[in-house]
């Protein structure tokens, strides 16, 4: 094996870690907003991702049937709709369910678990039990090969770019917009925020809905790397929670760091160990670190 090959493999392996990082981050981001900023545990987060994924599937089948000429262009539009639809459902969920349970975080957990069961059954009844996979535009498939023996997956690049965009957007919104200001005020001190005229209930609803919307985007992005079935969401939920908890709940930066750490650990150990053992090793590492440092990597002043 020549030096060139080793160099290429190392590059591709680095990118594999990076692409897992973007997947984890995208999963965790919506949750970090909901869980970190509001203290709400949304076990149905995975199902909101599935909503996004099915939106893409729907768009792809519709485009294929009615406007095959637009196949190359539907994807970005579908992502926007994935956000909007998940956002809408999130808004509804907050109104119907979550707002009654703010004082009882553990009960939210049970109620949203119930919600996730119901949503899975709705998916099953609507789209059937079989896994589906949207037809992707050509530009999203295949690999980018800058040199011989070096293949960088385009879908990986796409998810990476999307993650950067969404993360940047969330950070910007949280620290530069009125909404962000309100959210941060509410997190810091709810009665005070109320007293200064912030409609904290409204802020909560909007925050929850935005978190769900981001989940929808995540689900949409995952259609480029995996499949979509009624129970796809449940595959992601534990990973997503671990990313957020490991990072330190209220810190977005922590979520980024923890997604990076977990992704690299898993991806590198996968290269040297078997897949199952790599998973166990990564989880054990997370749990051990959490036991020693329960506040996560980046602790911050959270509402207790």
């Amino acid at each position: 094996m020549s030096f060139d090959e080793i160099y290429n493999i190392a590059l591709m392996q680095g990118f594999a870690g990076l692409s897992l990082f973007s997947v984890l981050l995208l999963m965790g981001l919506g949750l970090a907003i909901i869980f970190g900023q509001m203290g709400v545990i949304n076990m149905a987060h995975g199902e909101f991702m599935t909503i996004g994924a099915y939106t893409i599937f729907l768009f792809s089948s519709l485009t294929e049937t009615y406007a095959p000429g637009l196949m190359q262009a539907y994807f970005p539009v579908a992502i926007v709709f994935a956000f909007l639809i998940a956002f809408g459902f999130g808004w509804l969920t907050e109104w119907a369910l979550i707002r009654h349970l703010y004082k009882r975080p553990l009960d939210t957990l049970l109620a949203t678990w119930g919600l996730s069961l119901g949503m899975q059954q709705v998916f099953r009844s609507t789209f059937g039990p079989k896994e589906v996979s949207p037809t992707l535009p050509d530009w999203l498939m295949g690999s980018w090969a800058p040199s011989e023996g070096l293949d960088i997956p385009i879908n990986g690049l796409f998810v990476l770019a999307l993650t950067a965009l969404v993360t940047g957007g969330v950070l910007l919104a949280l620290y530069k917009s009125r909404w962000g200001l309100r959210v941060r005020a509410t997190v810091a001190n709810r009665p005070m925020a109320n007293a200064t005229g912030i409609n904290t209930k409204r802020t909560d609803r909007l925050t929850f809905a935005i978190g769900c919307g981001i989940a929808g985007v995540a689900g949409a992005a995952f259609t480029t790397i995996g499949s979509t079935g009624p129970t796809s969401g449940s595959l992601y939920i534990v990973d997503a929670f671990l990313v957020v908890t490991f990072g330190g709940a209220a810190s977005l930066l922590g979520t980024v760091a923890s997604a990076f750490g977990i992704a690299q650990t898993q991806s590198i150990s996968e290269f040297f160990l078997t897949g199952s053992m790599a998973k166990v090793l990564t989880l054990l590492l997370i749990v051990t670190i959490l036991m020693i440092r329960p506040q996560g990597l980046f602790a911050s002043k959270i509402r207790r």
Partner: protein
Amino acid sequence: MADKKDTIPATLTDEQRRKVLLGMAAAPALMVPGVSFGNAQFPTAKVNTTKLAVTDTEVIVGQLHSATGTMAISETGSIQAEQLAIDQINAMGGILGRKIKVIKEDGASDWPTFAEKSKKLLVNDRVACVFGCWTSASRKAVLPVFEKENGLLYYPTFYEGLEQSKNVIYTGQEATQQIIWGLDWAAKEKSAKTYFLVGSDYIWPRTSMKIARKHIETVGKLGKVVGEEYYPLGHTNFNSLINKIKVAKPDVIFVTVVGGSNVAFYKQLKAAGITGAKQFLLTLSVTEDEMLGVGGENFAGFYSSMKYFQTLDNPNNKAFVEAFKKAYGPKSVIGDVTQAGYLGPWLWKAAVEKAGSFDVDKVVAASPGIELKTAPEGYVKVHENHHLWSKARIAQGQPDGTFKVVAESADLIEPNPFPKGYQ
């Protein structure tokens, strides 16, 4: 037994069969002149000495699959195919003059539920036989129940072998039937020397890979295994694995990845530049059902080793595909296991008629040697060890999601659930 064959044909002629398969519309016409046995010839007291749910006009069978839960994805096809076969048999006049009535139970992808429901079917409902199970785990869960209550199970899935029960007829392939011929073909056609084995982490892939490795390295002396990897069920990130494959540069990637992982695996392979045009890949776990999720564009050019493909070109299969699509919609697809599920009721019918009784012991005794000339996959025969003699086939995935059969074993391959030299 031979004398009975004159009055009760164990199998129908192709002509008769095709008429039936053409759908339920043709059925009433067949029923009148059809094989009407009349219960005078087969009084209930005679054909049912073990208190099964058999009356003068009806015989009750069970169907036990997952209609809900994670396995519903895979088991739906089997449920449909078994139902289709039963409807067709009823349209022909049933078995020994009795219509088949089905009690459907849902195993809900949960193994103890399978055990519980199988017990209900055998003890409470006294069904004459059960068509069901899909995963090995569910079969292992119900097996003690079937052996204890002396039930009869028709199991449709290709599986890892290492099992042989008096109370089970296995209508799918055991591991060697799927693997050895396929590997030999790969070695011969593609002059493959190095093999990389990838599987999901549970019993079927691990046993299959064990047999594959033995065959590659010692028994068949095909070459050498340059990697063997397993990933947890539901794993969706294969980039590190793909890099390992790139390091190893195998001639053949031999795959037994299942479920949702399957889709992620092929999508990521394609994204990493490993396509059918550049790399030879042979899998045991992609049928037409999986193809729906994987997408033809991601699997194009890769090969799958099965005994049945929907595109098989023979009259039996044409009629079967037509009837299936008529019953379940033009978009429905038929995979290997679906076809094996379809065989179950027909094999049972032939065995019951040969035995002249519904009693499990007699049906089991009559089963070895039962032939089915009308099987969509061609011709099958029940072996002494309760598995089927069947052909092996290799097909190449096409961009439109269908398979093109490229090779077929000349003879039926003998089932061998406990292969010597492969342990």
